[in-house]
């Protein structure tokens, strides 16, 4: 069983806690001048997505999670599962809605996603940081209207809704930051 000592703790390290794989978000070293040292660690449970804080006695070891991140191509969904493929080995994986989380609203077939595999199965799927998606619906608005500044909602081809500037029209392709869910720019035609 691989283990990590608290001195190896850093953001991104994956541990097993109470039977679930977790990833370290933040690791803080806490120690009174004359007393016991601790590591106060903020973690995300990779199965449930829940964030928790746990305190370890410094110097102790914790079981490592047998987790790896792989870049996989998104193939399609049958509504219950989302299917991915490793473009080198052609091995296929299916992720459930829990593993997909929010990601479903950003990805299109052939997009490459970072898929976290635990014991060989996807437990988390991350969309690319930036995606280009077409606007399928938005209020046409008034031409030349630059007032308001707050923009308007636009529905994208994947179903996601983002706030966009008033000049954006149906059929435009937009670059969107999937981490914040915010409009970045209009995408240039390839």
């Amino acid at each position, binding site marked *: 069983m691989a283990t990590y000592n608290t001195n190896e703790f850093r953001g991104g390290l994956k541990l097993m806690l109470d039977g679930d794989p977790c990833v370290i978000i933040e690791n*803080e*070293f806490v120690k*009174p*001048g*004359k007393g*016991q040292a601790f590591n106060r660690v903020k973690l995300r449970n990779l199965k449930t997505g829940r964030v928790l*804080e*746990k305190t*370890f*006695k410094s110097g102790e070891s914790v079981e490592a999670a047998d987790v790896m991140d792989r870049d996989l191509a998104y193939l399609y969904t049958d509504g219950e599962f989302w299917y991915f493929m490793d473009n080198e080995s052609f091995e296929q994986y299916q992720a459930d809605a829990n593993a997909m989380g929010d990601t479903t609203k950003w990805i299109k077939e052939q997009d490459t996603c970072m898929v976290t595999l635990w014991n060989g199965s996807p437990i988390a799927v991350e969309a690319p940081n930036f995606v280009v998606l077409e606007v399928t619906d938005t209020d046409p608005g008034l031409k030349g209207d630059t007032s308001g500044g707050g923009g308007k909602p636009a529905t994208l081809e994947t179903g996601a809704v983002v706030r966009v500037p008033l000049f954006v029209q149906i059929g435009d392709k937009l670059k969107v930051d999937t981490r914040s869910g915010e409009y970045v720019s209009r995408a240039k035609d390839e």
Partner: protein
Amino acid sequence: MTKRHLNDWRPGASIDTLKARARLLERTRAFFRERGVLEVETPLLGASFGTDPAIEPLTSEFNGPGYPKGKQLNLQSSPEFFMKRLLAAGSGAIYQLGKAFRNGEAGRRHNPEFTILEWYRPGFDAAQLMDELAALIRDLVDDQTLAVERCSYRSLFVEHLAIDPLEADIESFRRCARSRKLLLADDMALDRDGWLDLLMSSFIEPSLGATGLTFVSDYPASQASLARLNPHDQRTAARFELYWKGVELANGFEELANAEEQSERFEHENCRRFTSGQRPMPVDDALLSALEHGMPDCAGVAVGLDRVLMCQLDLEDIDRVLAFSLARL
């Protein structure tokens, strides 16, 4: 602890912060000059080291005349033992402004090498020294109205956690942590003082000094191996700490001057080191001889000046007040 980007040669502290640091050092020296306290310098490399199981040395080795097989030297975790020898030699009130070293400590509030201010006042008790420390901090941060409050270690536990730190057993500490939703490793093995440290740093410390300087006094005797026991309650020692904005800034004692008692405490701590698998430390015989010769009754305190600067400038990471922290070496 800040992670350095590759090729980042720059200091962690801004030039303005370095100027504030220089001002802090100047004002410290002016403060003690006005009060007639003598500045001293003692070795950073010592042959012995404190026995406190919570403090580990960074070590070095001298090879040269007189030491054909080499001599292990420890970078000092504080100048305390050397300064006590000066006090026994009749120095009178002394202060030292310099560096101290602790192995294994790195984080937002820790760097293995840090700036320490330590001073000793013959004839002072803990209360007088707390007053002087408060005056110094007010001076350093240029705020004569900074509020000062005092409370005892025990009263904090009673107030925040409804538990008596001097009497409760380990099982009650565990229950207390659990009832407050503190998630711990299942097999966390802590002794009494370990549990107290955990509860203190998780539930009490963050709120200490929110509106000014907070002194915490009368620590459990088991957490004060260099302090004198309180005559009114032998379960506690005349040890105090200073907190500001949730940050531990200073630690002080009425100094134990009894050589025999000190020797027993060193031995006891070395036993604890041995049972927990740590290397016992060579006991400082020169310090014990100095105490035997006679050290004046005094109180002493050590202040982490990097942290004072952090609090003054509202900086969250010690890397921001140091030219080059561990991650930038």
